[in-house]
């Protein structure tokens, strides 16, 4: 699944995505867990919010952002993404290659329509990108 945050194109395995729905707003939760700082409600359903945009130092674009429900190993969580509707794309396994810089949050990279795109590991998404000096 290809989606965007702050205009940057990102990808995730479809098996790591539980769904996409309109973003209905979230209530902040005072928190010291990195990037987990809100709850979002949809009917009786409440999900923790993972601030992927904050982790990537990006700002979600569009007046009507979307809510991507990511399957993390400890349960589903909501990620606010750009208003652009995500798309499904098939990538051959031979087209996958390791990220240029080691990042525990990125499984592989690939080229889609000529754009290098990181494929995020939603199952254990938790830590900020590793920076190398």
């Amino acid at each position, binding site marked *: 699944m290809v989606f965007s945050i702050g205009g940057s194109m990102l990808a995730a395995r479809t098996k790591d995505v539980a769904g996409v729905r309109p973003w209905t707003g979230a*209530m*902040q939760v005072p928190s*010291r*867990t990195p990037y987990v700082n809100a709850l979002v409600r949809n009917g009786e359903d409440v999900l923790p919010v993972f601030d992927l945009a904050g982790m990537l130092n990006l700002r979600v674009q569009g007046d009507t952002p979307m809510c991507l429900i990511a399957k993390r190993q*400890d*349960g589903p969580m909501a990620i606010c993404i750009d208003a652009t509707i995500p798309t499904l794309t098939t990538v051959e396994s031979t087209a996958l290659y390791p990220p240029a810089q080691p990042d525990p949050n990125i499984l592989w990279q690939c080229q889609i329509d000529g754009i290098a795109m990181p494929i995020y590991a939603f199952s254990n998404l938790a830590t900020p990108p590793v920076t190398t000096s």
Partner: protein
Amino acid sequence: MSLRGQTKFVAGAGVTERMLVVTSGPVNLAISATAVEGILPPEEAGLAGTVTVREITYPVTDLARRLGYAPAASANDPRVILCGSRGFRRGFRVDQVLGLTEVEIRHLRPLPPHFAAEERTWFKGYFLYHEGIALWANPDWLVGDDPAGESPEPLVGATRVVEAHASRPGEVIELEVVNAERTK
């Protein structure tokens, strides 16, 4: 001196927790009624850093600051709530008191495991509140030491009031039941 004097009782088929729900910045916070010792209009709390009610002095700070947010520049219906737990006491300026609520214990949910740091000790969980969510504060954390440095002002010049009012004259804080049957 807590609101209605008790917190857990049977309403219909379920045990409920009685809570005061307030707003502070972006957060709806629910405080167990046993930990709420009074509610004052801000003018009675004065501008000093403390307020004394029935010989008890409460250091007063913004609840938003306690929660780690910047206090709102203005609030439509602010109050000062007086809280106490295990011998510690604090007063908090809040943006609004939303009401007194009874929630069935079975509808109180723990924070999702994704919240993995100190916040698990700050909040006992949350519940669905109207169209949104209310966080259930741990009163021991709420009134306990604040390492962020919200030290109480000296007691000199503390505002003294004779009695804590539940609201402004003529106002009533409605008691509602969330997901529970009303008691007879």
